[in-house]
């Protein structure tokens, strides 16, 4: 899996946030649009695209998109 592709998939879960807002360093939980429902979309996307089920704590403990990417990569 590549971080570029992961960021594209990640950004797809947002409706209003501009796609250019997403980088490996983005602190995603600080985005205005972030909500618990976005979190569920992310979990579903990670299951569909990478066949990994992430836990609530994986999201809570990740600050940046790169952090979450690293957690998923380890479980693959």
């Amino acid at each position, binding site marked *: 899996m590549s971080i570029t592709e992961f960021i594209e998939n990640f950004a797809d879960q947002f409706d209003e946030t501009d796609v250019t807002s997403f980088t490996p360093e983005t602190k995603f939980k600080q985005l205005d649009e972030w909500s618990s429902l976005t979190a*569920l979309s992310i979990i579903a996307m990670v299951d569909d695209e990478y066949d990994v089920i992430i*836990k*609530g704590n994986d999201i809570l403990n990740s600050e940046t998109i790169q952090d979450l990417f690293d957690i998923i990569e380890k479980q693959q």
Partner: protein
Amino acid sequence: MSQLTINNVRIAGMSACVPATVEENLNLPIYKDQSEALKVIASTGIERHHKVETGTTASDLTMKAVEKLLEDLGWQSQDIDCFAYVCTSRDYIAPQTACVLQDRLKLRSDCCVFDLPFGCSGWVYGMSIVGSLMSHGTFKRAILVAAETNTQNRNPLDTTVRPLFGDAATATALEFDGQRSRPMNFMFGVDGSGFQAVWAPYGGMRNPVTPEALQEQEVSPGVFRRGVDMVVNGMDVFGFAIKRPPQSLKDLIATFNIDVETVDLLLLHQANKFIDEKIRKSVKIPAEKTPYCLEEYGNVTSASIPLTMVSRCRETLAGEEKHCLACGFGVGLAWASMEFYAGDVKISDMVTY
């Protein structure tokens, strides 16, 4: 794999009772504005739920559901050989609620009654347990209740649960019948490592009720809970629900050589539309064969599957035999899937409390 086949038992009738009071998610005071409510409704599919008045218990709803079912079937309470009560919102810490209901329903004093404290997987587990007892042939008629008052053990100021859960009681009448029955097949599953995904931390023996456990705290912005209130960790439940139930249904299909093309109804625990649709698509069953009632009643835990059958499948199940799959999943974490046939089922009109 733990698999089970039960013979000689059929569903004779079903009924349900819901409280008259309806809470509309659109108007809940916990949201900043209606756009927030609309987002929740769009993603969960849940528009409203029925809610008991404080003081009304799941057993009160059960009384109405069972009385209606017996009347419509022409059964007497004295005919019942076995009565199982699937519920976690029990009337008292002791005794079991089924004992109190034996007297209230005027069941025989030699009736086999018991509680089954299951959550969302409860109707499927209950069918396997009561069905097994009946398959021996000496119990001829049984009632399986699946009931819950979810609004009473969750905090009304907890935005993560209030829009999702409702109250209901259902009753399923089972009879021993070697002629008109088909085998019922089951698969089971559990992951106790996830017990904190849905749980009430205080009020049991591990963490008894203390004055502190009754103090309401803001655990995260907009989420208020006491130690005795039910916690639902949405992200962990979601991760569980998109993985285990699909696998369970696939295992059921493979183990019992089920031709999915012949399935008439997929009956899912009504968790939320997003989760349930993922499960449905994973087993490639068309939308028109997958009834929902969560838009009207929310998640009513163990009562979800039978409430869907009573409120949405009355005519379908009254006719000739239908090939059904069901999957219940949730608190435990526990789940179970079953294959069964149902036809000529007497389904009562919905009862309101």
